[in-house]
């Protein structure tokens, strides 16, 4: 159980982030709901978390900005006075073939997915170091493990997240802070809405179906409670990256 704990979840207004926020809340954790675009959806998530009987506050922030992440850490510290669990989930896709990919499509995906994860760890780890305790869980992707045509930017960012996870795990282990990653495969969210069920990709998934956001949230919740696992990447992908 996570009673009395405080979790920060980025990209929590929808998709995997929302499912993670709700799962951690159902285990008793208060939640800082970090979102970028959709304040209406973020408020919906907040209300749903509150109905589970725990505190929830929404924060609008662009995690790709070092300064905004810094300010966010300050605000959350003021509101909750501690952070036990940080889930770096905020991510974007701008798919395209390399030969046709714009500089902006590459940069913006790296900035949000990889640098955003760094920015959050950078500004939240001091709180955890002081507390000599913490769990950081980064959402990577199987695309970052095995590559995916049309996702050079995305898979590079997600592979980067795995490297970042392992370095942070080694650096922070002495402070009793664990850092792990979850690598989802094809999960049914807005991000994958363009991939239909009859896509040949689905036939490549050993479990023959898309995953659900709740199934990713289960893995995150497991890592949030695990005390002797660090630097690990857990695939939640129906076996696609075996």
């Amino acid at each position, binding site marked *: 159980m996570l009673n009395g704990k405080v979790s920060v979840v980025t990209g929590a207004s929808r998709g995997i982030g929302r499912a993670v926020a709700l799962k951690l809340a159902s285990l008793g954790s208060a939640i800082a709901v970090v979102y970028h675009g959709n304040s209406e959806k973020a408020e919906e998530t907040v209300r749903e978390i509150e109905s589970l009987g725990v505190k929830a506050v929404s924060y609008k922030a662009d995690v790709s900005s070092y300064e905004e992440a810094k300010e966010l850490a300050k605000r959350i510290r003021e509101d909750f006075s501690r952070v036990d669990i940080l889930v770096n989930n905020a991510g974007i896709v701008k798919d395209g073939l390399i030969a046709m990919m714009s500089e902006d499509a590459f940069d913006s995906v790296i900035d949000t997915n990889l640098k955003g994860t760094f920015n959050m760890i950078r500004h939240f780890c*001091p709180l955890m*170091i*002081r507390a000599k305790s913490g769990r950081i869980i980064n959402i990577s992707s199987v695309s970052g493990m095995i590559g995916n045509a049309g996702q050079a930017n995305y898979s590079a960012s997600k592979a980067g997240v795995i490297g970042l996870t392992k370095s942070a795990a080694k*650096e922070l282990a*002495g*402070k009793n802070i664990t850092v792990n990653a979850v690598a989802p495969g094809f999960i049914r969210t807005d991000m994958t809405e363009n991939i239909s069920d009859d896509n040949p990709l689905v036939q490549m998934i050993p479990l023959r179906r898309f995953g659900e956001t709740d199934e990713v949230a289960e893995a995150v919740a497991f890592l949030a409670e695990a005390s002797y696992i660090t630097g690990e990447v857990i695939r939640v992908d129906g076996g696609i990256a075996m």
Partner: protein
Amino acid sequence: MDEKTIFDAIRETVAERTDANIDDIKMESTFRELGIDSLDTVELLMNLEDKLGVTIEVDKKLETVKDLVDFIAAL
């Protein structure tokens, strides 16, 4: 902030962390000699931030106690 205040705070913090005798911590002592490695430095700086009420963002290598005293004094 005067150097004495900073020096005393550093000595106190280092002594707490390493069980070193406070009198053995001198301006010219290196953190390595005092048994503080680069990963420990982060925590040391945070404890100092709390003690001195300043934000310390170090962007260069500080080898001796004096390096750190000078760095904080210049903030």
